[in-house]
């Protein structure tokens, strides 16, 4: 039986970018590709939780970061995970210059639009990795 692709957001809390990363990942795991994509607590992983580390080491991972600090990618790699794909909300903003998300707690309209665009991109990558996985 195939293991779900692990999609792990940074969940940054200081700017809207982190909220978008988190929102998009939940869209993928809970709405677009349930069963094929799953996530886990990034902090739990970094704190050395054995179950989280085992899941990461046995799974194909996608890191989703809000900003250039790339906390998701860095933390997953440090915890022994192999990143098969990486997305950054900052890059998505450059491709969608008309959108200016501002709210952090509850996404505003532009934040929601970016989350949907990002979720579609992640879902497409999940499909690709799922097809390729043994």
């Amino acid at each position, binding site marked *: 039986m195939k293991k779900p692709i692990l999609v792990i957001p940074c969940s940054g*809390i200081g700017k809207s970018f982190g909220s978008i990363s988190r929102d998009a990942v939940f869209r993928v795991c809970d709405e677009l590709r349930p069963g094929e994509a799953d996530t886990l607590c990034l*902090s739990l992983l970094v704190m050395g939780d054995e179950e989280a580390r085992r899941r990461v080491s046995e799974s194909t991972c996608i890191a989703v970061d809000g900003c250039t600090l790339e906390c998701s990618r860095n933390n997953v790699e440090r915890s022994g995970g192999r990143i098969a794909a990486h997305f950054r909300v900052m890059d998505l903003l450059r491709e969608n210059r008309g959108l200016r998300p501002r709210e952090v707690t509850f996404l505003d309209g532009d934040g929601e639009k970016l989350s949907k665009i990002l979720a579609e991109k992640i879902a497409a990558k999940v499909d690709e990795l799922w097809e390729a996985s043994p």
Partner: protein
Amino acid sequence: MKIKPKIGVVSCSGECCGLGTISRVATRLALEELRPDETVTICLPLFLAGEAEEHGFAKEYPTIAVDGCGKRCAYKAITKYSKEPAAGVDVEALLGEWGIEAPKGRRTLDGDGLKAARRIAELLAAKVDEIQEAA
């Protein structure tokens, strides 16, 4: 004149379930609406990935760790890399005390989840006041 220290409020990332979403929303409400001039925050994954500068955060500011569940990642991380938080909140335990069910969704909060987040934000604001008074 007594200068009150800013208080660092640090939420777990809590991607596993809606409890993490409550933790995060409550933290943001405390920061944005209730005590905007008295509080600061840092992303927990940044704190964890960081070096001396990030770890210095909790040495510089008294902190409140806001955790979604009993694993208490935020509390343990701050204790491990800086110093013990001035206070900690366990959302799962609080919801149990208040007789509120954990939210089913994790992307958005339903009415009860949002009410719980607001109640926890009020609690955080009260803790901010207490810590500042005691400082």
